[in-house]
């Protein structure tokens, strides 16, 4: 069994997969990755099945010392990763040699990062069908908790393991690569309780801009901005909460329910974020702006299927497969990358 040691844990470093489905009726949050697209792309880059457990980190990432060789890929927010003293690439598979330290110090753009490890990812027991960490229940993932100093974490031996090569920085051409889209409108499907808001309230929701609050976490994204007027209070008879449900409590500002959300709740829900735009939302840091745009459920599903088909095509057209024997690190030249529009 291969392993790495956690030298620096980072702020919120956990093992996640797509989530623990099927237990919501008992009140279990699905947990799972915040940015499903970055997670899936990481697994794709190292040749894993789409749902192989990966390491998720936020804001400040971990430093890991590998005791064995590994093929890895880092996706999501740009964490300015380092392999020992060298710059390591984002969005590209590369080799970590035994004894090397891989660090993901801080998110320069975006919030959540992912480390995918080839040959099946981190080796943790599946609890109720999932490797995801449920922090509230202390269940799943690595001992049911976030990483801490000195943890020794197992992963599947990657020698010899082929992986996909898409060339350096291929993601610049990826239509779903989201750092060029951080100011894009977030598409939402209206309902299930949009009828509980006044037409002025609905106008406010779609015309005004909201700012990501500092009180945002894996459970929900709280937004600051103009109050949304309801027609008769914001309490409803508690019902189910889907991923991306946008609750409007009495104070009138939205809370978007995310991976660690409660399964049911009693605030009226004005709309639900389209699955394809959840990654755009969760990667927005405190104070960044969010503007909502309505789409139909049919359109939201069409977008999701188009994204899936795109990545299937990427995988099918991968230029070739490399092995551990081939050197593959190229310095990541950030100079040519599009710059972010200024954020107010």
């Amino acid at each position, binding site marked *: 069994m291969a392993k790495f040691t956690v030298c620096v844990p980072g702020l919120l470093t956990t093992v996640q997969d797509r989530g623990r*489905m*099927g*237990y*919501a*009726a*008992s*009140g*279990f949050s*699905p947990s799972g990755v915040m940015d499903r697209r970055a997670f899936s792309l990481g697994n794709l880059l190292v040749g894993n099945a789409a749902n192989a457990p990966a390491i998720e980190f936020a804001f400040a990432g971990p430093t890991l010392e590998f005791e064995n060789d590994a093929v890895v890929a880092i996706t999501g927010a740009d964490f300015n990763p380092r392999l020992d003293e060298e710059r390591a690439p984002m969005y590209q598979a590369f080799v970590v040699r035994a004894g090397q330290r891989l660090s993901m110090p801080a998110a320069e753009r975006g919030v959540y990062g992912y480390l995918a490890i080839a040959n099946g990812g981190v080796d943790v027991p599946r609890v109720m069908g999932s490797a995801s960490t449920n922090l*509230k*229940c*202390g*269940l799943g993932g690595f001992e049911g908790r976030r990483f801490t100093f000195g943890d020794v974490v197992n992963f599947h031996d990657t020698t010899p393991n082929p992986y996909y090569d898409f060339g350096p920085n291929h993601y610049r051409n990826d239509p779903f690569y989201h750092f060029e889209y951080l100011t894009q409108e977030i598409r*939402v*499907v*209206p*309902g*299930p*309780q949009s009828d509980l808001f006044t037409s002025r309230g609905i106008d406010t929701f779609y015309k005004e801009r909201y700012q990501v609050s500092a*009180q945002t976490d894996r*459970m929900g994204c709280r937004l600051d901005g103009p109050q949304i007027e309801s027609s008769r*209070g914001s*309490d409803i*008879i*508690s*019902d*189910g*909460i*889907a*991923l*991306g*449900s946008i609750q409007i*409590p*009495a*104070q009138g500002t939205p809370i978007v329910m995310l991976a660690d959300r*409660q*399964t*049911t*709740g*009693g*605030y009226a*829900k004005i*709309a*639900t*974020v*389209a*699955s394809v735009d959840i990654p755009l939302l969760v990667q927005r840091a405190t104070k960044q702006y969010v503007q909502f745009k309505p789409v139909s*459920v*049919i359109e*939201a*599903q069409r977008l*999701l*299927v188009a994204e*899936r088909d795109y990545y299937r095509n990427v995988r099918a057209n991968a230029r070739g497969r490399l092995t551990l024997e081939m050197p593959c690190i190229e310095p990541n030249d950030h100079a040519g990358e599009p710059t972010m529009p200024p954020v107010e």
Partner: protein
Amino acid sequence: MRPYQICVCGDSAINIVVADTISAEASALVRSAAARIQAAGIAGIEDIVPTFCAVMVAYNPETISYEELVSAVHANLDGLSAEGASAGKTIVIPVCYGGEFGPDLEHVAQFHSITPDEVVRLHTEPTYLIAMLGFLPGFAYLSGLNPDLETPRLEVPRVRIEAGAVGIGGAQTGIYPLPSPGGWQIIGRSPLRPYDAEREPAFLYAAGDSIEFEAISPDEYAEIEAALQAGTYEYRVKEAM
């Protein structure tokens, strides 16, 4: 005319709504609908969440589209009716009301222009039916709250509510199984833990069981807490007749 409506909850869930007020009949309809959907084994369904008046069905739209799911739901809910739900057990939950354990007891009393003692009396009087579990593992939504105690939720939810906290949120009352953010008015706390992964069984109750609250003093709270830690506490359960 179908006895339910389907509401869109984004691109990956629908809500099958059977009623707009809480009732025993709504609960029975919900449980019946959830059981039918479960039994149908429709590919792509990821979660079935029965609630007071609706069943939320979460699905993977890469496997089944919205239109396909709606057709499958209609096909399986044809002739839906409230079938008799079997009676469950009743568990007694000791609660220390007010003080540091129930910071909102005074507010709830003032809101209704009654004394805190009267709030406690009205809250411990009924036998509450567990209509559903949700929100958190082991969080029971109870029906049976005296309408005289209905109190709006906090305008700004608290960032942390302690495990065992007992609260009122609108027309609902219940006990928090784990520390959590929440918007209910907290009127007391129980030393019992409705969900404990280390305990067998992990859940004290299931949908269809009932709960009674019993007022205890801070000293009794401490005694029960000590008994729970020592493993000597005996849960008080009344089996269904």
